């Protein structure tokens, strides 16, 4: 799994600007993902990314390293027939992610991550009618405090501690498109909101507990090979940030190669 995130403009609070001292900030991510079907209704997944940042202008040095290990449990609660050919499936997904290394969080935008432990609960509904589908989900993420290398910082007031309260997050995701045994093609709308946090002040540096919000739109594709190459899957996608706050206006492209080893328990949950 590979993704490339790049932005030139960013939102300083609600003010959109560029910064010649950064130029374009590029973040590359290489990740290993795994998905194991325990039963036809219960999947466990993991995700382990390696991240590297780089700015095209200015003097700031990029950082790189292994970021957070993500562990997910996805449970298909129930499938209801809906209409003549349609069916509606409800899922509950839990994700826990935690940093595997002591990487630097407090050097944004060059940090490779925010270093909090996150626990996400997501509820998802998937409606499929023949080869067409629509999926909607909402999530809530609890985030742990983080520790930074300095022992004081100013957000909207002075804190004399190395601990930072990371506000929780919530958001939604909606997708619609075509889904068959071999192809998935979908349009996606992705939204994240920080429930609290503060705005970057004019010409200040970003901080891990900023109010980082973003709405992105994009497309995803997946192709599953058949016959001799059965089990091999290719994915590709692209997303663009249409609205944001205290984040870069990122364009993200990604691609991945997957191999399904468990043919016997292949199930209908194609969504990532």
């Amino acid at each position: 799994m590979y993704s490339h995130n790049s932005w030139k403009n960013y939102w300083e609070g609600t003010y959109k600007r560029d910064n010649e001292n950064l130029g374009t900030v590029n973040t590359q991510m290489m990740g290993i993902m795994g998905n194991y079907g325990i039963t036809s209704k219960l999947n466990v997944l993991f995700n382990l990314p390696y991240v590297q940042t780089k700015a095209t202008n200015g003097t700031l040095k990029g950082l790189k390293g292994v970021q957070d290990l993500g562990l997910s449990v996805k449970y298909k609660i129930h499938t209801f027939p809906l209409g003549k050919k349609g069916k509606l499936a409800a899922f509950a997904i839990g994700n826990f992610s935690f940093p595997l290394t002591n990487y630097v969080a407090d050097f944004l935008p060059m940090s490779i991550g925010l270093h909090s432990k996150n626990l996400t609960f997501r509820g998802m509904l998937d409606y499929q009618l023949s080869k067409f589908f629509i999926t909607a989900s909402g999530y809530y993420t609890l985030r742990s405090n983080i520790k930074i290398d300095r022992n004081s910082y100013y957000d909207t007031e002075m804190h004399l501690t190395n601990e930072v309260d990371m506000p929780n997050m919530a958001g939604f995701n909606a997708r619609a498109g075509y889904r068959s045994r071999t192809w998935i093609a979908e349009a996606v709308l992705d939204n994240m909101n920080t429930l609290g946090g503060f705005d970057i002040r004019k010409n200040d540096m970003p901080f891990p507990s900023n109010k980082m919000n973003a709405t992105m739109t994009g497309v995803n594709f997946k192709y599953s090979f058949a016959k001799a190459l059965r089990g091999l899957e290719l994915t590709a996608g692209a997303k663009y940030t249409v609205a944001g706050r205290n984040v870069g206006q990122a364009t993200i492209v990604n691609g991945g190669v997957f191999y399904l080893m468990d043919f016997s328990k292949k199930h209908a949950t194609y969504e990532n």
Partner: protein
Amino acid sequence: MKTNLTYKLLMVTVLSGLVYGSCSKDLNDRSESYPALTPASIDLDAGTWKPVLLTAPGEFAVAAPVATTTPAYVAELNEIKGLQRNLSGNDKKIIKYWSAGAVLRWNEILRELVAKYNLPPYQNPDDTYPAPSAANPFAYPYFPFANPPYAARAYAYVSAAQYDALVATWHYKKLYNRAAPYKVDSLVQALVPKSDLPSYPSEDAAVAGAAIEMLKLLFPGEVAYIQQKADEHKRYRIMAGANVRSEIEAGEALGRLVAQKFSARGRADRAGQAIGNPDLWRKLETDTEAKGEVCWFSLESPKRPPMLPLFSKVKGFLCDSMDIINMRPAPPPSTSSQQFKEETEEVLYYSQHATRDRLRIVHFWADGAGTYTPAGHWDAIAADEFVKEGYSEVRWARNFALINMALMDAAIACWDAKYFYFNPRPSQSNSNIKTLTGVPNFPSYTSGHSTFSAAAATVLTHLLPDRGSKFNDMATEASMSRLYGAIHYRSDCTVGLENGKKVGERAVLRAQTDGAE
């Protein structure tokens, strides 16, 4: 299979519980855990300590208090009793907060203001930069840009004014010898540790009064906030049974009068002209080129004028302008020398071989934009130490004044070297040098962090000799953090430390003769 599933769901539940537990949102802020100030000695004779600007401790008259048997005083006791009957939870929080110490809390407030105002102005559409204006502090860019030299000067003025105000306060305390309200009337509760220190005029109000006056000059956009803090501070003393209102009023008036002397000095200390002008900025370049050296240029885009090139001309508290010139370090390695080349290579090495521990050091000491600056960092270090010492308010003020006068003069001495030599930053000398913190927008030689840190560490080591090499070790780490961060050559750091120590020694000389030791 079902058991398996139940087991796994149970695991997830337990895991969720553990994670939720670790998501506790309480921050362990050191400032909230400071205990109520309980001085080991009341320093009753501090009225004889040597002030900074006052010609005599009695320079400003304070009228004698009325007798504690008069109806006027009894009415003031009744005010305390009335307040103490109806203390809210918030009132108790206010008492707990301020009881840690007046000088300490005002130093924290000042550090917060510095962090709030320490942001470089955003460029104009034509790629020039606007300058903040004291005449209109609310228009962007807000006044002041509390950069490191500005901040060092602000800490020094507030601390020195509070110190002089307290020397005068102690003079009158001993003279009038008025007992605290809780000693006069047993029905008045002492909600702070009891003290034998005479309570007229109020030392807390003198500290607040001095702060109000000084901050009007230094942070004119925060007058309303400061006033609100001061009102809370004064009310705390009355609620706590530690002062009656007339003691507060006398202390505040005295603090204000003393601080007005410092404000008058501050208006004429040449800091207002430190920004320079385009002709001066060009002259710095031509003078350096005439010496055959590569001159500094701004690594920011668009290029920003150098930070406060005339701060070297500011009138110091410990060093005069001749001292600054006499202390000026020898030139840095010539930009065409082999040593310069080698030192640049060394910076490149640190840029390309950052370890996690060196990153920690770089970021711990970075004290860049949006922070309380190196001077504030050393005040924070000092505060954490002083809290353990049980100083009287006047000794707190004296020790902060010594440290902050040294830090301000360190800024002056360092800025003198920076603009006399106008030496390029490592990333200018070799564009492959990427930095692990922001590159400050002023010349390289000598390192400000090194100069500030050695000055403060020298004073702290004198004040707290039982801490051994602790402060000097911290200063060395702060100094090296700039090489590790790839924004300074080694010479900048080592020479900066030497020069800072010289400034610190001026403060130590003063400490040895100010009557407090």
